[in-house]
C-alpha cells in the first residue's frame, strides 16, 4: 500500500462526531401555531423565607444535599408537564412544591419518571418525595406517607357535541381512554363489572402510559371518551381549542397527596405545616388560581388524612 488511508472505523466515527456537532449547533426553540401551555405567563409564587422549625424537620440526606429530589410524571398538564425546552418541569404541583421547598430553605430537583414507578422510587430512596397528582387512597397510604394539598375529582370528557352519545352511567361496550396506574382505572373497572353483571358488553379500557396520549387518543378518535382527574380533564378541554367538552360534573372528589417515605413522618408533618403557612399567607391560593384550579383548594393539610 503506497499510502495509508484512514481506517473506515475512524472515518465513520469522525463523521458521526461531525454530524453530532453540526446538529447540536442549530435548532429552534419555537413552534409556529402551537397551542403551547396556557398560563405560560404565570409568575412564580412569591419567594418564601426559610422557617427554622421546618429546616429542623428535614431528613439529613436532604439537608446535606441542599435539594429535594422529586419524582414526577411530567405528562399531566396542567399539574406537571415538560416545558417547550424539553427539560424543565412546570405546572401547578411544581409551583406549589417549589414554594414548600423554599420554606425548608432548599431547592427542588424535578426528575421526570413514569407514574407507576414513582412510589417505588420514593421507597427506594431514588426520589426524596413524589409530587405527581397522587390521589390519596388506602393502598397508597399503606405503603407511604401522603400529605394532602389539593382536592380533585374525576372528570369525563368527550369530543365536542358528544357525537358518540356517551353516557358515563351507560358506557358499556365503548372505548374509554385512561392513564395507567390511576384511580380512574378502578372506577372504570367497577363500571365495567356493572355492565357485565347486567349481561352487557364490558367497557373497553384503552390504557395509555401518559395522560397526554389519552387526550390525543380522544382528539384523534381512537377512544370515545376519557376519564381523568378534574384539573387535567378540564385543562385538556380548554387546551384543545374547542375540540373537546367536559361530560357531566366532577365526582368522587378526593385529595391529592405528596408522597413521602413511611420512615420520614416528621418530614411529612413538616410539609403539611409548610402548606398551612403558605395558605395563611395567601400564596397557596394564588398558585392554584394561576392554573385555573381554584375549586380544588383545601384548607386543612394533613398527613394520611
Amino acid at each position, binding site marked *: 500500500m503506497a499510502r495509508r488511508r484512514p481506517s473506515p472505523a475512524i472515518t465513520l466515527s469522525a*463523521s458521526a462526531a461531525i454530524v453530532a456537532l453540526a446538529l*447540536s449547533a442549530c435548532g*429552534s426553540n419555537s413552534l409556529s401555531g402551537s397551542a403551547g401551555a396556557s398560563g405560560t405567563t404565570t409568575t412564580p409564587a412569591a419567594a418564601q423565607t426559610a422557617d427554622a422549625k421546618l429546616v429542623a424537620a428535614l431528613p439529613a440526606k436532604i439537608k446535606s444535599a441542599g435539594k429535594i429530589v422529586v419524582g414526577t410524571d411530567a*405528562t399531566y398538564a396542567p399539574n406537571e408537564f415538560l416545558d417547550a425546552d*424539553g427539560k424543565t418541569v412546570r405546572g401547578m404541583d411544581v409551583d406549589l412544591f417549589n414554594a414548600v421547598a423554599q420554606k425548608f430553605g432548599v431547592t427542588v430537583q424535578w426528575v421526570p419518571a413514569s407514574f407507576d414507578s414513582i412510589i417505588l422510587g420514593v421507597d427506594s*430512596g*431514588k426520589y426524596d418525595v413524589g409530587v405527581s397528582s397522587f390521589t390519596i387512597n388506602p393502598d397508597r397510604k399503606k405503603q407511604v406517607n401522603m400529605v394532602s394539598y389539593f382536592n380533585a375529582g374525576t372528570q369525563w370528557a368527550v369530543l365536542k357535541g358528544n357525537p358518540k352519545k356517551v353516557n358515563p352511567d351507560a358506557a358499556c361496550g365503548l372505548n374509554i381512554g385512561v392513564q395507567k396506574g390511576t384511580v380512574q382505572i378502578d372506577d372504570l373497572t367497577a363500571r365495567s363489572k356493572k355492565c357485565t353483571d347486567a349481561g352487557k358488553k364490558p367497557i373497553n379500557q384503552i390504557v395509555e402510559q401518559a395522560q397526554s396520549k389519552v387526550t390525543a387518543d380522544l382528539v384523534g378518535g381512537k377512544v370515545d371518551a376519557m376519564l381523568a382527574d378534574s384539573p387535567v380533564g378540564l385543562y385538556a378541554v380548554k387546551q384543545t381549542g374547542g375540540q373537546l367538552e367536559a361530560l357531566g360534573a366532577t365526582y368522587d372528589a378526593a385529595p391529592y397527596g405528596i408522597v413521602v417515605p413511611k420512615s420520614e413522618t416528621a418530614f411529612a408533618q413538616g410539609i403539611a405545616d409548610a402548606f398551612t403557612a403558605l395558605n395563611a399567607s395567601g400564596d397557596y391560593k394564588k398558585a392554584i388560581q394561576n392554573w385555573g384550579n381554584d375549586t380544588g383548594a383545601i384548607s386543612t393539610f394533613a398527613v394520611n388524612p
Partner: protein
Amino acid sequence: VSAPASTETTDRPGIIEARPVSHPWRWVVLAGLAILVAMMLSSFITNKRWDWGFAFQVMNQSPVLNGLVRGTIVGTIGAMIIGVSLGVLIAIMRLSENPVLQWVAFVYTWFFRAIPRYVLLAILGSGVGYLYATLHVGVPFGQQISSALGLQSDLTFFSLDVNTLSNSIIFGIIGLGLSEAAYMAEIARAGILSVDKGQAEAAQALGMNNGRTMRRIVLPQAMRVIVPPTGNEAIAMVKDTSLLAAIPIIAELFYQTSAIGTRTLRIMPAFVAATLWYLIICSILMVGQYYLERHFGRGFGQKKPKNKRFARSGGMGGA
C-alpha cells in the same frame, strides 16, 4: 455483410431469430405500483393531517436535536462499543477449553438474550436502585473483614449513588450494551468458527501463542463474517434507543418528539419527524456499513464488475 451466406450449407441451422423473453406481467405490476405510488404521493399533499411543515419544524427543535445527539447517537455508539467488545470477549470464553469460562459465557448469553430490552431497561431504571441504593467498590466482603480485624477503613475505594446514575444515559448505555453483548457474542462466535482451523494451527506452528493467534490471525479473518451482521445490529440499536424511555431518559429523540406531539396534540407530524430522523441516521449507517464490508472483504471471493448495472441493461428493455 461479406457474403457469409455463400458458405452456408443446407444441413446447417438458419440464422437464429433471437428475441428477448417478453415479460408482460412486469408491465402490469409496474403500472399497478405506479398508481399506488401516485395515490400515496397525492395523499401526502392533499391530506392536511400529515402537516409536513409542522413535522419539519419538530425535526429542528432544540430539545429534539439534543435528544437525537445525546440520546440516540451517543446511546447507539456507547451501547455498540460495550456490546462489541464484551461480545467478542464472551465468544472467546465460549470457545475456550476452560469449562468454567464456557459455562459462564453460556449463562450470560442465555440470560441477556431471553430478557426483552424494554423490560431490562425498566428494571435498570427503577428496580436496581431499589435493591442497591449505593454501589461500593472495594475489597470483596471488605466491611465484614474490617469489622473482624477492627480496622478503621471498611476497604471501600469509592461509592456510586445508583439512584442518581439511574436516570442518566450511562445506565441506558449499560443496559443496551449488556443486552447487545449477548447477540454480538453469537455473531462473533460464528465468525471465529468460520475461520479454517488450519489457520490457527499454522500460526501455532510458527510459534505464536493463543492470544496472538487470535488477535493476528483468526479475528482479522473472522471480521469478514462478523462485520455484516454487526452493521445490522448497529442499525437495530439506533432504533432500540427509543426504548430508553423505559428508564426513563428524556433526552432521547422519540421521547422529545412525542412530548411535542402530545403537548400540541399534533401526534402524527411528531411521529413523522421521528421517523424521518431515524431514516436519515440509518441511511448514513448503511453507507458506512457498505464501506466497512468492502474493507474487511478484501481479497475474498469475486470482485463485482464495475459496470454491472449497465452490462445487464440490454436484457431489461425487452418485452
